[in-house]
Structures are given as structure tokens and as C-alpha cells.
């Protein structure tokens, strides 16, 4: 009962922090937008009013993307960490991000565009994540051991990394710049009209996780033990990797590769909530992930007049020491 009480309290605090963070996030940024402007922008949108356009096109979109990206990546990280029984696992390690990077690099730097379209980067990233997700999936049919699968993911990452480096050496300056910008990650390039599409994929991914709660809970006991509890390990693996590919691919497509969120946040939530109940962890990661990225982005926006830090660099700057700190505290 005490733990239940404690967890309810934590969720309440998380929720309040999230609301506070969201409000702070909306008012961050160099151009001053008043509360009245936001209110008017929602209920009486005036397309000629610059402040209204900034409120909707920049502030709301950026906030929504921070929430979606943070929560989706954290949940994807949680899925990978339980599936591979390894706190170091994440969508990155599996090579799902590398798939996106590879296809984006090919599209931008070889001139052989897969899609002659404005959205070519986005489509390439999404396709890359899905291809590599399914590649990992097909490997999982032959490889029984999850650690081996994790290593294959790492190798795929190194391999595609090498190809991307090769492409970069042969690329012209302009294309190289566009690719580098994409790898830095950004949550401010998304447009309001793209949000509904993102939301559809996001909810498909998150809601499917509900069916994974039970098998993941028993997988904590180990692969063999969960088999003996009647869990279908093969279908669990397929669905977990598929959902991870959708969530990661979606976010990487629109925001570029954002590092460390998927690694740091699930570790923090497990330590804070002290539980292996994935129903609880799912919600905890949803809240915590959103909160983490909102606060990162607030700081980035306040630092903008001085120095412009890409989100990918910033999440690593905060995430890496945080993980070390947690590990040190845990070991005591």
C-alpha cells in the first residue's frame, strides 16, 4: 500500500511538472507572446497576426513535438531494455536509427533520390527505420539469443556508419551541410499540418504497447522462465521490435536522431518507481520522457541568444552524466 501511495504521489508530481514545463516551454523563445495571444490563437485565429502564427506554427508545434518525441523514444527504449534484458539497450543500439541515417544520407548525397519530393528526408528516415526494423526481425528468426541480436544491431550500426562516412567524403558541401543539420536533430522543423499524421502513428505505436505489458512483465524473469509461463517469445519479439521501429522511425523522420532519451529516461523511471510492472512503467516513461525533452528544449531556447545548441548534442550533454550519476548512486 505504501508503494502504491508513493507511486500515485510521483505521478501527481510528474503531471504537475509536465504542466509547468509545458507552460514554460510555450513562453520560452526570443519573441514575446502573451497569454492573450495564445488564447486568441486557439479560439480566434487571425492569419494576418504574426503573433498568432508564431504561437500556432512555432510554439504549439514545438511543444507537441517535444512531448511526442520524448515519450515515444523513452517508451521505445523501455521496450528494448526489457526485450534484451539490458539497461544499455535502446533503439539506437538495435540499429533502427542507423537505418534512418543510411537512407537519409543516400537520398541527400548520392543524388539518387528515392523520393523526388519535399518530404524526401522524412520519407527516407521512416523507410530506413522500417527496413532495418524488419532486418533485425528477420535476424531474430535465426538468432535465438537476445544478446547476439543486440550485437548484430551494433554491427549494423557500425556498418552503416562506415557507409555514411564514405558518402560524406564524396559529397558536395551543400548536401553535406543539409545532412549534418539533420543528424544534429531538431524539434522545430515540423509543421502544424504534419501533426495529425504524426499523431496517428504515435497512437498506433503507444496503444499497441498495452498488449505487450503482460509478456514483458514475465520476460523480466528471463527468456526460458517466460517460455515456461506460456509466453510466445517469437511473437513477443516481432511485435516489440515492430512497435519500436514505428515509434523510433516516426520521431527520427521528423526530428532527426535524438540520442540518449531512449537510454536515460527508462533507466531513471525504473529507479524512481522501483517496479518491474510494465503497465506502470509505460505511463511513467510517457510522462518522464515528455518532461525530459520539454526541459531540455526550454534550456536550449533560453541559451539561443548566446549559443545555439542542437537538441541531439544537448540530450547527450545532460543524459550521459545523468546516467553515470544514477549508476554511482545505485551502486552505493
Amino acid at each position, binding site marked *: 500500500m505504501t508503494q502504491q501511495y508513493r507511486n500515485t504521489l510521483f505521478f501527481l508530481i510528474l503531471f504537475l511538472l509536465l504542466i509547468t514545463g509545458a507552460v514554460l516551454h510555450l513562453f520560452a523563445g526570443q519573441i514575446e507572446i502573451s497569454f492573450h495571444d495564445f488564447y486568441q490563437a486557439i479560439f480566434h485565429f487571425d492569419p494576418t497576426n504574426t503573433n498568432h502564427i508564431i504561437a500556432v506554427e512555432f510554439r504549439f508545434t514545438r511543444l507537441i513535438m517535444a512531448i511526442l518525441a520524448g515519450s515515444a523514444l523513452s517508451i521505445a527504449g523501455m521496450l528494448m531494455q526489457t526485450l534484451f534484458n539490458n539497461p544499455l539497450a535502446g533503439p539506437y543500439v538495435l540499429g533502427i536509427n542507423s537505418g534512418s541515417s543510411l537512407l537519409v544520407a543516400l537520398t541527400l548525397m548520392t543524388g539518387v533520390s528515392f523520393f523526388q519530393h519535399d518530404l524526401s528526408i522524412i520519407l527516407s528516415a521512416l523507410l530506413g527505420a522500417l527496413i532495418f526494423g524488419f532486418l533485425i526481425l528477420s535476424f531474430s528468426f535465426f538468432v535465438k539469443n537476445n544478446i547476439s541480436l543486440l550485437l548484430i544491431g551494433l554491427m549494423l550500426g557500425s556498418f552503416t556508419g562506415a557507409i555514411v562516412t564514405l558518402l560524406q567524403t564524396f559529397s558536395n558541401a551543400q548536401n553535406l551541410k543539409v545532412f549534418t543539420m539533420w543528424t544534429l536533430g531538431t524539434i522545430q522543423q515540423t509543421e502544424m499540418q504534419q501533426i495529425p499524421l504524426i499523431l496517428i502513428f504515435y497512437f498506433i505505436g503507444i496503444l499497441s504497447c498495452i*498488449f505487450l505489458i503482460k509478456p514483458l512483465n514475465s520476460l*523480466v524473469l528471463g527468456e526460458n522462465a517466460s517460455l515456461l509461463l506460456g509466453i510466445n517469445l517469437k511473437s513477443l519479439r516481432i511485435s516489440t521490435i515492430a512497435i519500436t521501429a514505428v515509434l523510433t522511425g516516426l520521431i527520427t523522420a521528423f526530428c532527426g536522431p535524438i540520442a540518449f532519451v531512449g537510454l536515460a529516461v527508462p533507466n531513471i523511471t525504473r529507479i524512481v518507481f522501483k*517496479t*518491474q510492472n510494465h503497465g506502470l512503467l509505460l505511463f511513467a516513461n510517457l510522462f518522464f520522457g515528455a518532461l525530459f525533452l520539454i526541459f531540455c528544449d526550454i534550456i536550449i531556447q533560453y541559451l539561443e541568444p548566446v549559443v545555439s545548441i542542437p537538441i541531439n548534442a544537448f540530450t547527450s550533454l545532460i543524459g550521459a552524466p545523468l546516467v553515470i550519476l544514477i549508476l554511482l548512486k545505485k551502486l552505493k
Partner: protein
Amino acid sequence: MINLKNVEIGYKSSLLNLEQIHIKRGEIFAVIGENGAGKSTLLKTLTGQIHPIQGQIIIEEKNFQLLNRKEKAKLVSFVGSKFDGIPYLKVLDYLTLGRTPHTDLYGRLTPQDKKTVDHIIELLHIESFIERYTLELSDGERQLVAIGRALVQNTPVICLDEPTAFLDYGNRKKLIRLLSEVAKKEQKCILFSSHDIDLCIDEKIPVLLINTNTKKLEQYNSISKEEIIQKGFPSISY
């Protein structure tokens, strides 16, 4: 109830022949034999982790090999020789995971499920540490909890692979007594592999002995230590 007739088990070639084995509800057997004789293979076959080379395994009148994983998990549960504990996993949550084969798609617990868990907690007298984390327990407590998890699974058959291997003398004796008591009280078929021959004889535990010479599993309701050594460990008998 377990019924085996002319079952050959092993990985690629036949390791052990189960000519005629019949175990009723409420019975407990210690599986005794040399290292590599096939104790683990037997337990793995009975829990559905490997298929028998020949013959049928009949558990509760059902052809075990034809069942799917979930149905198997409702008939047979398994306890390893050591449960190391899992970070952030509480004893109560660990025990509750035993209900996995019985719960719905979302893993929701019915009042009946909760009642089963409570009953096992009471049976094993572990009320005092269900709120603790599995990593914080002693080896003895952890093994008790692992058996509790198998009992929560509520299967007619329970297989344990050397459950006493990592316990001290007192805890070994207690564990074997507990298993024997549970088999009768809860009407389970319990099979556990063991090297504690003296303890099993002291506690009058019936024996499934792997005869080294004939490569056959022999069923004894009572057997002397000399006979066990002569048939199961011929290299030291004189």
C-alpha cells in the same frame, strides 16, 4: 498424474529409457543419478523444453507434446536450482507472475487469482517478506519464494532441478520436508533432481533412479542407500 510408457529421451541420441513410469497426484519423487545421466534432460522433457525422441508423455490424460505453450504451462511448472533475484521486483509481484498462464491478454488478475496467491503465501508462511524486493532475500528465502511462484502457477505437476544445490544443511532438510508436505496437502506430482541421497533416504522420499548400466529410469517407493549406489553409481560400489 504422469504416465510414461517406453519413452526415449535425449538430445540427438537416446540418453535414457523411461520404460514404465507412473506417478499419481500427491506423490513426490527424487530423481537420482550420476552427472550427465539425464536428470536435467528428464526434467526438461517433462516441462516441454525438449521433445522426447520416441514415445508419448501423458500428463493428466493429455498428450503433452500436442499442447501449446500456454496449455503446457497450466500443467507443468518448473523451478531452477537458483533464483538470483531481479532488480526492483518485489516478492509479491514475483509470486503473482505465476498466474501468467491463467490471466487474460492484458494480464489482469481476477479475485480467484489473488486468492490463489494468498493461499500459497499462507501455505509457505512467507507473509513477513512479500513486500521485500527479491534481491534482498537470503538464498534460502529466495528458493522458497521460487517454489511459491511455481505453486501459484497451480499446475498438477511441478519439476525442480536440484532445488537444494545452493542451500545449507538445515535449509536442504526443510525444503525437502516442505516439498513432501506440499505434494500431499495440495495433491501435486512433484519431481526434483537431487544429489542429497542421505537426506532423501532420511525423509523417506521415493526415488526415480537412473540405472547407469541399463540406461533406464527405475521407480522405487523405498530403496536402500546401498542399492542406490550399486545401481546408480557403480564406479564407487564394491
